[in-house]
Protein backbone atom coordinates (compact mmCIF):
# COMPACT_ATOMS: atom_id res chain seq x y z
CA UNK A 1 0.00 0.00 0.00
CA UNK A 2 1.26 3.42 -0.97
CA UNK A 3 -0.04 6.57 0.62
CA UNK A 4 0.99 10.18 -0.04
CA UNK A 5 -0.26 13.06 2.07
CA UNK A 6 0.26 16.60 0.78
CA UNK A 7 3.63 15.74 -0.74
CA UNK A 8 5.80 18.56 -2.04
CA UNK A 9 9.06 18.13 -3.86
CA UNK A 10 11.20 21.17 -4.60
CA UNK A 11 14.59 20.58 -6.22
CA UNK A 12 17.73 22.51 -5.36
CA UNK A 13 17.30 24.70 -8.44
CA UNK A 14 13.90 25.86 -7.18
CA UNK A 15 11.72 23.75 -9.48
CA UNK A 16 8.52 22.58 -7.82
CA UNK A 17 8.14 19.07 -9.20
CA UNK A 18 5.24 18.17 -6.92
CA UNK A 19 3.03 20.73 -5.19
CA UNK A 20 0.85 19.02 -2.66
CA UNK A 21 -0.02 15.54 -3.90
CA UNK A 22 -2.27 13.26 -1.86
CA UNK A 23 -3.10 9.80 -3.13
CA UNK A 24 -3.82 6.30 -1.91
CA UNK A 25 -2.87 3.26 -3.97
CA UNK A 26 -4.20 -0.02 -2.62
CA UNK A 27 -2.53 -3.38 -2.72
CA UNK A 28 -2.82 -5.17 -6.09
CA UNK A 29 -3.91 -2.07 -8.03
CA UNK A 30 -2.73 -1.33 -11.56
CA UNK A 31 -2.22 2.42 -12.02
CA UNK A 32 -1.25 4.40 -15.12
CA UNK A 33 0.53 7.64 -14.45
CA UNK A 34 -0.07 10.05 -17.34
CA UNK A 35 0.59 13.69 -18.05
CA UNK A 36 2.89 15.95 -20.05
CA UNK A 37 6.68 15.55 -19.83
CA UNK A 38 8.11 17.37 -16.86
CA UNK A 39 4.79 17.39 -15.00
CA UNK A 40 6.17 15.37 -12.10
CA UNK A 41 5.56 11.71 -13.05
CA UNK A 42 9.18 10.67 -12.62
CA UNK A 43 9.47 12.48 -9.29
CA UNK A 44 6.29 10.76 -8.13
CA UNK A 45 7.89 7.38 -8.82
CA UNK A 46 11.33 8.26 -7.48
CA UNK A 47 9.70 9.16 -4.19
CA UNK A 48 8.18 5.68 -3.98
CA UNK A 49 11.52 3.87 -4.30
CA UNK A 50 13.30 6.47 -2.21
CA UNK A 51 15.55 7.85 -4.92
CA UNK A 52 14.27 11.23 -3.69
CA UNK A 53 12.85 12.41 -0.39
CA UNK A 54 9.84 14.71 -0.11
CA UNK A 55 10.48 18.36 0.77
CA UNK A 56 7.18 18.41 2.66
CA UNK A 57 4.44 15.93 3.43
CA UNK A 58 4.43 12.22 4.14
CA UNK A 59 4.83 9.09 2.05
CA UNK A 60 4.31 5.63 3.35
CA UNK A 61 5.27 2.58 1.28
CA UNK A 62 4.48 -0.85 2.72
CA UNK A 63 4.34 0.79 6.13
CA UNK A 64 7.74 2.53 5.86
CA UNK A 65 7.82 6.30 6.28
CA UNK A 66 9.94 7.17 3.24
CA UNK A 67 10.82 10.72 4.32
CA UNK A 68 12.18 9.59 7.69
CA UNK A 69 13.92 6.45 6.49
CA UNK A 70 17.46 5.96 7.80
CA UNK A 71 19.98 5.53 4.94
CA UNK A 72 20.87 2.07 6.26
CA UNK A 73 17.27 0.95 5.80
CA UNK A 74 16.88 2.13 2.20
CA UNK A 75 18.15 -1.11 0.61
CA UNK A 76 15.61 -3.14 2.57
CA UNK A 77 12.71 -0.99 1.38
CA UNK A 78 13.91 -1.27 -2.22
CA UNK A 79 14.01 -5.04 -2.06
CA UNK A 80 10.24 -4.95 -1.83
CA UNK A 81 9.90 -2.65 -4.85
CA UNK A 82 10.76 -3.69 -8.40
CA UNK A 83 11.80 -0.86 -10.71
CA UNK A 84 11.62 -0.95 -14.52
CA UNK A 85 12.96 1.75 -16.84
CA UNK A 86 12.51 2.80 -20.43
CA UNK A 87 16.22 2.10 -21.07
CA UNK A 88 16.17 -1.32 -19.28
CA UNK A 89 19.30 -0.61 -17.18
CA UNK A 90 20.79 -4.06 -17.37
CA UNK A 91 24.43 -4.62 -16.45
CA UNK A 92 26.06 -4.92 -19.88
CA UNK A 93 28.87 -7.27 -18.83
CA UNK A 94 26.54 -9.79 -17.21
CA UNK A 95 24.46 -12.44 -18.95
CA UNK A 96 20.65 -12.40 -18.78
CA UNK A 97 20.81 -15.03 -16.06
CA UNK A 98 23.42 -13.12 -14.04
CA UNK A 99 21.47 -9.88 -14.30
CA UNK A 100 18.44 -11.52 -12.73
CA UNK A 101 20.35 -13.64 -10.21
CA UNK A 102 22.15 -10.51 -9.05
CA UNK A 103 19.00 -9.13 -7.45
CA UNK A 104 18.75 -12.34 -5.43
CA UNK A 105 22.42 -12.42 -4.47
CA UNK A 106 21.87 -9.00 -2.95
CA UNK A 107 19.39 -10.44 -0.47
CA UNK A 108 21.84 -13.25 0.26
CA UNK A 109 19.58 -16.02 -0.96
CA UNK A 110 21.17 -19.50 -1.10
CA UNK A 111 22.67 -20.36 -4.50
CA UNK A 112 20.38 -23.33 -5.04
CA UNK A 113 17.31 -21.18 -4.56
CA UNK A 114 18.75 -18.40 -6.73
CA UNK A 115 19.19 -20.88 -9.57
CA UNK A 116 15.72 -22.32 -9.24
CA UNK A 117 13.93 -18.98 -8.94
CA UNK A 118 15.94 -17.28 -11.70
CA UNK A 119 15.10 -20.03 -14.18
CA UNK A 120 11.49 -19.77 -13.05
CA UNK A 121 11.21 -16.05 -13.85
CA UNK A 122 13.11 -16.53 -17.11
CA UNK A 123 10.42 -19.05 -18.00
CA UNK A 124 7.72 -16.60 -16.98
CA UNK A 125 9.08 -13.83 -19.25
CA UNK A 126 9.56 -16.39 -22.02
CA UNK A 127 13.33 -16.18 -22.30
CA UNK A 128 14.54 -19.41 -20.73
CA UNK A 129 16.55 -20.19 -23.85
CA UNK A 130 18.41 -16.88 -23.72
CA UNK A 131 19.76 -17.15 -20.20
CA UNK A 132 23.40 -17.08 -21.37
CA UNK A 133 23.02 -14.09 -23.70
CA UNK A 134 24.51 -10.70 -22.93
CA UNK A 135 22.11 -7.73 -23.08
CA UNK A 136 23.73 -6.51 -26.31
CA UNK A 137 22.81 -9.81 -27.97
CA UNK A 138 19.11 -9.35 -27.12
CA UNK A 139 16.44 -7.24 -28.81
CA UNK A 140 14.90 -4.26 -27.00
CA UNK A 141 11.80 -6.24 -26.09
CA UNK A 142 13.89 -9.12 -24.79
CA UNK A 143 16.04 -6.77 -22.71
CA UNK A 144 12.93 -5.27 -21.18
CA UNK A 145 11.67 -8.75 -20.35
CA UNK A 146 14.95 -9.48 -18.55
CA UNK A 147 14.59 -6.17 -16.69
CA UNK A 148 11.07 -7.19 -15.66
CA UNK A 149 12.32 -10.61 -14.60
CA UNK A 150 14.92 -8.88 -12.43
CA UNK A 151 12.23 -6.62 -10.95
CA UNK A 152 9.97 -9.50 -9.94
CA UNK A 153 12.52 -12.14 -8.95
CA UNK A 154 12.32 -11.26 -5.26
CA UNK A 155 8.52 -11.20 -5.27
CA UNK A 156 8.14 -7.47 -4.56
CA UNK A 157 4.77 -6.16 -3.50
CA UNK A 158 5.11 -3.14 -5.83
CA UNK A 159 6.46 -2.66 -9.35
CA UNK A 160 7.28 0.87 -10.48
CA UNK A 161 7.70 1.14 -14.25
CA UNK A 162 8.85 4.37 -15.91
CA UNK A 163 7.68 4.23 -19.55
CA UNK A 164 8.52 0.53 -19.94
CA UNK A 165 7.29 0.50 -23.55
CA UNK A 166 8.82 3.85 -24.51
CA UNK A 167 11.53 2.36 -26.70
CA UNK A 168 9.57 -0.54 -28.14
CA UNK A 169 7.46 -1.08 -31.26
CA UNK A 170 3.68 -1.58 -30.75
CA UNK A 171 3.71 -5.35 -31.06
CA UNK A 172 6.57 -5.78 -28.57
CA UNK A 173 4.87 -3.23 -26.28
CA UNK A 174 1.77 -5.39 -26.12
CA UNK A 175 3.90 -8.34 -25.18
CA UNK A 176 5.35 -6.38 -22.27
CA UNK A 177 1.86 -5.21 -21.22
CA UNK A 178 0.57 -8.78 -21.17
CA UNK A 179 3.48 -9.70 -18.97
CA UNK A 180 2.82 -6.81 -16.55
CA UNK A 181 -0.85 -7.70 -16.40
CA UNK A 182 0.06 -11.27 -15.62
CA UNK A 183 2.33 -10.08 -12.80
CA UNK A 184 -0.46 -7.82 -11.50
CA UNK A 185 -2.84 -10.72 -11.67
CA UNK A 186 -0.52 -12.70 -9.40
CA UNK A 187 -0.87 -10.01 -6.72
CA UNK A 188 1.70 -7.28 -7.36
CA UNK A 189 0.78 -3.59 -7.32
CA UNK A 190 1.88 -1.90 -10.56
CA UNK A 191 2.46 1.80 -11.08
CA UNK A 192 3.35 2.60 -14.66
CA UNK A 193 4.14 5.99 -16.17
CA UNK A 194 3.36 6.05 -19.86
CA UNK A 195 2.75 8.20 -22.93
CA UNK A 196 1.15 5.34 -24.84
CA UNK A 197 -2.43 6.41 -25.56
CA UNK A 198 -3.39 3.16 -27.26
CA UNK A 199 -2.36 1.01 -24.33
CA UNK A 200 -4.09 3.19 -21.71
CA UNK A 201 -7.29 3.39 -23.72
CA UNK A 202 -7.37 -0.32 -24.55
CA UNK A 203 -6.21 -1.96 -21.36
CA UNK A 204 -8.41 0.08 -19.02
CA UNK A 205 -7.03 0.65 -15.52
CA UNK A 206 -6.95 3.40 -12.92
CA UNK A 207 -5.47 6.56 -14.48
CA UNK A 208 -3.77 9.28 -12.44
CA UNK A 209 -2.92 12.38 -14.47
CA UNK A 210 -0.26 14.70 -13.12
CA UNK A 211 -0.02 18.27 -14.42
CA UNK A 212 2.20 21.01 -13.01
CA UNK A 213 2.98 18.95 -9.95
CA UNK A 214 -0.66 18.35 -9.03
CA UNK A 215 -3.06 15.49 -9.54
CA UNK A 216 -5.36 16.73 -12.31
CA UNK A 217 -7.42 13.55 -12.67
CA UNK A 218 -7.75 10.28 -10.81
CA UNK A 219 -10.22 7.94 -12.52
CA UNK A 220 -10.86 4.22 -12.15
CA UNK A 221 -10.90 2.60 -15.62
CA UNK A 222 -10.00 5.99 -17.03
CA UNK A 223 -8.72 6.98 -20.44
CA UNK A 224 -5.51 8.64 -21.58
CA UNK A 225 -7.14 12.05 -22.05
CA UNK A 226 -4.38 13.69 -24.08
CA UNK A 227 -3.95 14.03 -27.81
CA UNK A 228 -0.80 11.92 -27.98
Amino acid sequence: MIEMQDVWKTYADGTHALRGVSVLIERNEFVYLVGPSGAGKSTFMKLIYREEVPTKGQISVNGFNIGKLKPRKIPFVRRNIGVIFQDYRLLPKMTAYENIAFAMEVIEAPRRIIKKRTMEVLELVGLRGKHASLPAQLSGGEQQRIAIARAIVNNPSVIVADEPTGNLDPETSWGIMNLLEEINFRGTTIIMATHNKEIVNTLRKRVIAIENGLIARDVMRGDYGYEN
Partner: protein
Amino acid sequence: MKISTLLRHFREGAKNILRNGWMTFASISSIVISLFILGVFLLLALNVNNLASQIESQVQIRVFLQLDTAQATIDSLSTQIKAIPEVSKVEFVSKEQGLELLRESMGEENADLLEGYDKENNPLPDSFTVEVLDPQTISFAAKKIEALGQTSESNPFLSIKYGKGTVENLFRITNAVRNIGLVIVGGLAITAMFLISTTIKMTILARRREISIMKLVGATNHFIRWPFFIEGALIGLIGSVLTTVVLLVGYDRLIEASQFDFGLMMIKLVTLKEVGFLVSVLLVGLGTMIGIWGSTISVRKYLKV
Protein backbone atom coordinates in the same frame (compact mmCIF):
# COMPACT_ATOMS: atom_id res chain seq x y z
CA MET B 1 28.24 -11.81 6.66
CA LYS B 2 27.49 -15.32 5.48
CA ILE B 3 30.39 -17.36 4.16
CA SER B 4 28.49 -18.01 0.95
CA THR B 5 28.15 -14.25 0.49
CA LEU B 6 31.87 -13.76 1.06
CA LEU B 7 32.59 -16.44 -1.51
CA ARG B 8 30.18 -14.70 -3.86
CA HIS B 9 32.13 -11.44 -3.42
CA PHE B 10 35.41 -13.19 -4.24
CA ARG B 11 33.84 -14.86 -7.29
CA GLU B 12 32.34 -11.58 -8.41
CA GLY B 13 35.56 -9.61 -7.83
CA ALA B 14 37.56 -12.10 -9.88
CA LYS B 15 34.90 -12.19 -12.62
CA ASN B 16 34.90 -8.40 -12.83
CA ILE B 17 38.59 -8.48 -13.67
CA LEU B 18 37.76 -10.53 -16.76
CA ARG B 19 34.53 -8.68 -17.56
CA ASN B 20 36.27 -5.30 -17.60
CA GLY B 21 39.16 -6.56 -19.71
CA TRP B 22 40.50 -3.27 -21.02
CA MET B 23 39.99 -1.39 -17.81
CA THR B 24 41.79 -4.13 -15.92
CA PHE B 25 44.56 -3.96 -18.48
CA ALA B 26 44.86 -0.19 -18.01
CA SER B 27 44.99 -0.50 -14.23
CA ILE B 28 47.51 -3.32 -14.21
CA SER B 29 49.67 -1.52 -16.78
CA SER B 30 49.78 1.62 -14.71
CA ILE B 31 50.73 -0.42 -11.65
CA VAL B 32 53.43 -2.32 -13.52
CA ILE B 33 54.96 0.81 -15.05
CA SER B 34 54.89 2.89 -11.85
CA LEU B 35 56.14 0.11 -9.62
CA PHE B 36 58.82 -0.87 -12.12
CA ILE B 37 60.28 2.63 -12.12
CA LEU B 38 60.01 2.69 -8.35
CA GLY B 39 61.68 -0.72 -8.13
CA VAL B 40 64.58 0.29 -10.38
CA PHE B 41 65.27 3.30 -8.19
CA LEU B 42 64.85 1.24 -5.06
CA LEU B 43 67.52 -1.21 -6.27
CA LEU B 44 69.71 1.68 -7.29
CA ALA B 45 69.31 3.28 -3.86
CA LEU B 46 70.06 -0.01 -2.11
CA ASN B 47 73.22 -0.41 -4.15
CA VAL B 48 74.33 3.14 -3.54
CA ASN B 49 73.74 2.59 0.16
CA ASN B 50 75.71 -0.61 0.01
CA LEU B 51 78.54 1.09 -1.83
CA ALA B 52 78.57 3.89 0.73
CA SER B 53 78.76 1.31 3.52
CA GLN B 54 81.62 -0.47 1.78
CA ILE B 55 83.55 2.77 1.51
CA GLU B 56 82.75 3.69 5.08
CA SER B 57 83.78 0.31 6.42
CA GLN B 58 87.26 0.89 5.04
CA VAL B 59 87.93 3.67 7.51
CA GLN B 60 89.93 2.57 10.50
CA ILE B 61 91.92 4.04 13.38
CA ARG B 62 95.68 3.64 13.46
CA VAL B 63 97.11 3.91 16.97
CA PHE B 64 100.90 4.36 16.97
CA LEU B 65 102.75 3.51 20.16
CA GLN B 66 105.86 5.03 21.71
CA LEU B 67 108.97 3.22 20.50
CA ASP B 68 109.90 1.82 23.87
CA THR B 69 106.49 0.52 24.95
CA ALA B 70 106.73 -2.62 27.04
CA GLN B 71 104.92 -5.78 25.97
CA ALA B 72 102.84 -5.73 29.19
CA THR B 73 101.58 -2.24 28.41
CA ILE B 74 100.78 -3.30 24.85
CA ASP B 75 98.70 -6.21 26.10
CA SER B 76 96.85 -4.11 28.63
CA LEU B 77 96.14 -1.37 26.06
CA SER B 78 94.85 -3.94 23.60
CA THR B 79 92.39 -5.20 26.22
CA GLN B 80 91.34 -1.70 27.16
CA ILE B 81 90.71 -0.63 23.57
CA LYS B 82 88.75 -3.79 22.90
CA ALA B 83 86.56 -2.91 25.90
CA ILE B 84 85.35 0.32 24.23
CA PRO B 85 81.76 -0.43 23.12
CA GLU B 86 82.11 1.17 19.67
CA VAL B 87 85.18 -0.93 18.80
CA SER B 88 84.67 -4.11 16.81
CA LYS B 89 88.22 -5.29 16.21
CA VAL B 90 91.71 -4.52 17.48
CA GLU B 91 94.74 -5.82 15.63
CA PHE B 92 98.28 -5.42 16.85
CA VAL B 93 100.75 -4.56 14.08
CA SER B 94 104.35 -4.93 15.20
CA LYS B 95 107.00 -2.62 13.73
CA GLU B 96 108.28 -5.53 11.58
CA GLN B 97 104.83 -6.19 10.18
CA GLY B 98 104.41 -2.47 9.67
CA LEU B 99 107.55 -2.29 7.56
CA GLU B 100 106.39 -5.27 5.55
CA LEU B 101 103.03 -3.65 4.89
CA LEU B 102 104.68 -0.41 3.90
CA ARG B 103 106.94 -2.23 1.43
CA GLU B 104 103.92 -3.94 -0.09
CA SER B 105 101.96 -0.75 -0.45
CA MET B 106 104.85 1.13 -2.08
CA GLY B 107 105.20 -1.47 -4.76
CA GLU B 108 108.10 -2.84 -6.80
CA GLU B 109 109.33 0.34 -8.44
CA ASN B 110 109.66 2.30 -5.19
CA ALA B 111 111.22 -0.58 -3.27
CA ASP B 112 114.58 1.15 -3.28
CA LEU B 113 113.23 3.95 -1.10
CA LEU B 114 113.02 1.55 1.79
CA GLU B 115 116.41 0.00 1.17
CA GLY B 116 118.56 -0.24 4.22
CA TYR B 117 115.69 -0.53 6.57
CA ASP B 118 115.47 -3.97 8.08
CA LYS B 119 114.88 -5.80 11.32
CA GLU B 120 117.64 -4.01 13.22
CA ASN B 121 117.14 -0.69 11.60
CA ASN B 122 113.38 -0.05 11.69
CA PRO B 123 112.13 3.52 12.18
CA LEU B 124 108.50 2.48 12.50
CA PRO B 125 106.67 2.24 15.81
CA ASP B 126 104.43 -0.62 16.91
CA SER B 127 100.78 0.09 16.27
CA PHE B 128 97.18 -1.04 16.62
CA THR B 129 94.69 -1.12 13.76
CA VAL B 130 91.27 -0.50 15.24
CA GLU B 131 87.98 -1.06 13.46
CA VAL B 132 84.68 0.24 14.75
CA LEU B 133 81.20 -1.25 14.58
CA ASP B 134 79.59 1.82 13.06
CA PRO B 135 82.02 3.78 10.89
CA GLN B 136 80.11 6.98 11.69
CA THR B 137 81.30 6.78 15.34
CA ILE B 138 84.97 6.65 14.40
CA SER B 139 85.96 10.07 15.74
CA PHE B 140 84.15 9.35 18.99
CA ALA B 141 86.00 6.04 19.35
CA ALA B 142 89.31 7.74 18.53
CA LYS B 143 88.71 10.26 21.34
CA LYS B 144 88.04 7.45 23.80
CA ILE B 145 91.29 5.74 22.84
CA GLU B 146 93.11 9.03 23.26
CA ALA B 147 91.63 9.36 26.73
CA LEU B 148 93.04 5.94 27.68
CA GLY B 149 96.54 7.28 27.07
CA GLN B 150 95.98 10.37 29.21
CA THR B 151 95.03 8.37 32.31
CA SER B 152 98.44 6.69 32.61
CA GLU B 153 101.50 8.68 33.81
CA SER B 154 103.43 8.60 30.58
CA ASN B 155 101.28 8.66 27.46
CA PRO B 156 102.01 5.39 25.60
CA PHE B 157 100.58 6.77 22.35
CA LEU B 158 102.77 8.43 19.79
CA SER B 159 99.78 9.43 17.66
CA ILE B 160 96.24 8.39 16.78
CA LYS B 161 95.17 8.75 13.15
CA TYR B 162 91.86 8.10 11.45
CA GLY B 163 91.84 10.59 8.60
CA LYS B 164 90.32 13.40 10.62
CA GLY B 165 88.46 15.79 8.32
CA THR B 166 88.59 13.44 5.34
CA VAL B 167 86.46 10.88 7.10
CA GLU B 168 83.91 13.51 8.12
CA ASN B 169 83.70 14.69 4.51
CA LEU B 170 83.27 11.15 3.29
CA PHE B 171 80.40 10.61 5.69
CA ARG B 172 78.80 13.88 4.67
CA ILE B 173 78.83 12.68 1.04
CA THR B 174 77.60 9.15 1.74
CA ASN B 175 74.83 10.48 3.97
CA ALA B 176 73.77 12.97 1.31
CA VAL B 177 73.70 10.22 -1.32
CA ARG B 178 71.57 8.07 0.99
CA ASN B 179 69.14 10.89 1.69
CA ILE B 180 68.80 11.76 -1.99
CA GLY B 181 68.05 8.10 -2.72
CA LEU B 182 65.44 8.04 0.02
CA VAL B 183 63.77 11.22 -1.28
CA ILE B 184 63.68 9.91 -4.87
CA VAL B 185 62.23 6.56 -3.82
CA GLY B 186 59.70 8.25 -1.52
CA GLY B 187 58.68 10.71 -4.24
CA LEU B 188 58.28 7.93 -6.77
CA ALA B 189 56.20 5.90 -4.33
CA ILE B 190 53.79 8.81 -3.88
CA THR B 191 53.65 9.46 -7.63
CA ALA B 192 52.94 5.78 -8.23
CA MET B 193 50.13 5.87 -5.68
CA PHE B 194 48.42 8.79 -7.39
CA LEU B 195 48.93 7.47 -10.90
CA ILE B 196 47.53 4.07 -10.02
CA SER B 197 44.63 5.31 -7.96
CA THR B 198 43.68 7.76 -10.74
CA THR B 199 43.56 4.92 -13.25
CA ILE B 200 41.45 2.83 -10.91
CA LYS B 201 39.17 5.79 -10.24
CA MET B 202 38.62 6.19 -13.97
CA THR B 203 37.74 2.54 -14.40
CA ILE B 204 35.21 2.81 -11.60
CA LEU B 205 33.84 6.06 -13.00
CA ALA B 206 32.91 4.03 -16.05
CA ARG B 207 30.94 1.76 -13.74
CA ARG B 208 28.88 4.38 -11.96
CA ARG B 209 25.82 3.02 -13.71
CA GLU B 210 26.58 -0.43 -12.45
CA ILE B 211 26.70 0.88 -8.89
CA SER B 212 23.43 2.78 -9.31
CA ILE B 213 21.71 -0.38 -10.58
CA MET B 214 23.07 -2.35 -7.63
CA LYS B 215 21.57 0.23 -5.30
CA LEU B 216 18.29 0.08 -7.15
CA VAL B 217 17.82 -3.63 -6.62
CA GLY B 218 18.42 -3.08 -2.92
CA ALA B 219 22.11 -3.86 -2.44
CA THR B 220 23.56 -2.47 0.77
CA ASN B 221 26.63 -0.25 0.45
CA HIS B 222 28.60 -2.97 2.12
CA PHE B 223 27.51 -5.50 -0.46
CA ILE B 224 28.47 -3.19 -3.32
CA ARG B 225 31.84 -2.33 -1.86
CA TRP B 226 33.15 -5.86 -1.30
CA PRO B 227 33.62 -7.04 -4.91
CA PHE B 228 35.31 -3.74 -5.77
CA PHE B 229 37.58 -4.14 -2.77
CA ILE B 230 38.56 -7.64 -3.86
CA GLU B 231 38.93 -6.56 -7.48
CA GLY B 232 41.24 -3.72 -6.43
CA ALA B 233 43.32 -6.01 -4.25
CA LEU B 234 43.63 -8.60 -7.03
CA ILE B 235 44.60 -5.99 -9.62
CA GLY B 236 47.21 -4.57 -7.23
CA LEU B 237 48.49 -8.04 -6.42
CA ILE B 238 48.71 -9.19 -10.05
CA GLY B 239 50.38 -5.96 -11.14
CA SER B 240 52.92 -5.91 -8.34
CA VAL B 241 53.81 -9.60 -8.53
CA LEU B 242 54.34 -9.20 -12.26
CA THR B 243 56.58 -6.20 -11.67
CA THR B 244 58.55 -7.90 -8.92
CA VAL B 245 59.23 -10.98 -11.02
CA VAL B 246 60.37 -8.94 -14.04
CA LEU B 247 62.49 -6.67 -11.86
CA LEU B 248 64.22 -9.38 -9.85
CA VAL B 249 64.85 -11.64 -12.84
CA GLY B 250 66.33 -8.65 -14.66
CA TYR B 251 68.42 -7.76 -11.63
CA ASP B 252 69.68 -11.33 -11.35
CA ARG B 253 70.83 -11.18 -14.98
CA LEU B 254 72.54 -7.86 -14.28
CA ILE B 255 74.47 -9.31 -11.34
CA GLU B 256 75.52 -12.26 -13.48
CA ALA B 257 76.70 -9.99 -16.26
CA SER B 258 78.44 -7.62 -13.88
CA GLN B 259 80.66 -10.38 -12.56
CA PHE B 260 82.34 -10.46 -15.96
CA ASP B 261 82.02 -6.91 -17.12
CA PHE B 262 82.54 -4.71 -14.09
CA GLY B 263 84.64 -7.24 -12.23
CA LEU B 264 87.64 -4.96 -12.35
CA MET B 265 85.83 -1.84 -11.26
CA MET B 266 85.65 -2.96 -7.62
CA ILE B 267 81.89 -2.38 -7.63
CA LYS B 268 80.11 -5.16 -5.84
CA LEU B 269 76.36 -5.22 -6.45
CA VAL B 270 74.04 -6.18 -3.64
CA THR B 271 73.09 -9.82 -4.16
CA LEU B 272 69.58 -10.93 -5.00
CA LYS B 273 69.44 -12.82 -1.72
CA GLU B 274 70.06 -9.63 0.24
CA VAL B 275 67.44 -7.46 -1.50
CA GLY B 276 64.96 -9.95 -3.00
CA PHE B 277 62.79 -10.24 0.07
CA LEU B 278 62.79 -6.53 0.89
CA VAL B 279 61.99 -5.49 -2.70
CA SER B 280 59.24 -8.13 -3.07
CA VAL B 281 57.53 -7.29 0.19
CA LEU B 282 57.76 -3.56 -0.45
CA LEU B 283 56.47 -3.65 -4.04
CA VAL B 284 53.76 -6.28 -3.55
CA GLY B 285 52.61 -4.67 -0.31
CA LEU B 286 52.51 -1.21 -1.84
CA GLY B 287 50.81 -2.44 -5.05
CA THR B 288 48.09 -4.31 -3.20
CA MET B 289 47.53 -1.44 -0.80
CA ILE B 290 47.19 1.06 -3.63
CA GLY B 291 44.81 -1.26 -5.48
CA ILE B 292 42.55 -1.50 -2.45
CA TRP B 293 42.88 2.17 -1.60
CA GLY B 294 42.11 3.36 -5.14
CA SER B 295 38.99 1.23 -5.52
CA THR B 296 37.68 1.80 -2.01
CA ILE B 297 37.96 5.58 -2.24
CA SER B 298 36.33 5.67 -5.67
CA VAL B 299 33.41 3.43 -4.78
CA ARG B 300 32.72 5.40 -1.63
CA LYS B 301 32.38 8.50 -3.78
CA TYR B 302 29.65 6.95 -5.94
CA LEU B 303 27.83 5.25 -3.12
CA LYS B 304 26.75 8.63 -1.85
CA VAL B 305 24.74 9.30 -5.01
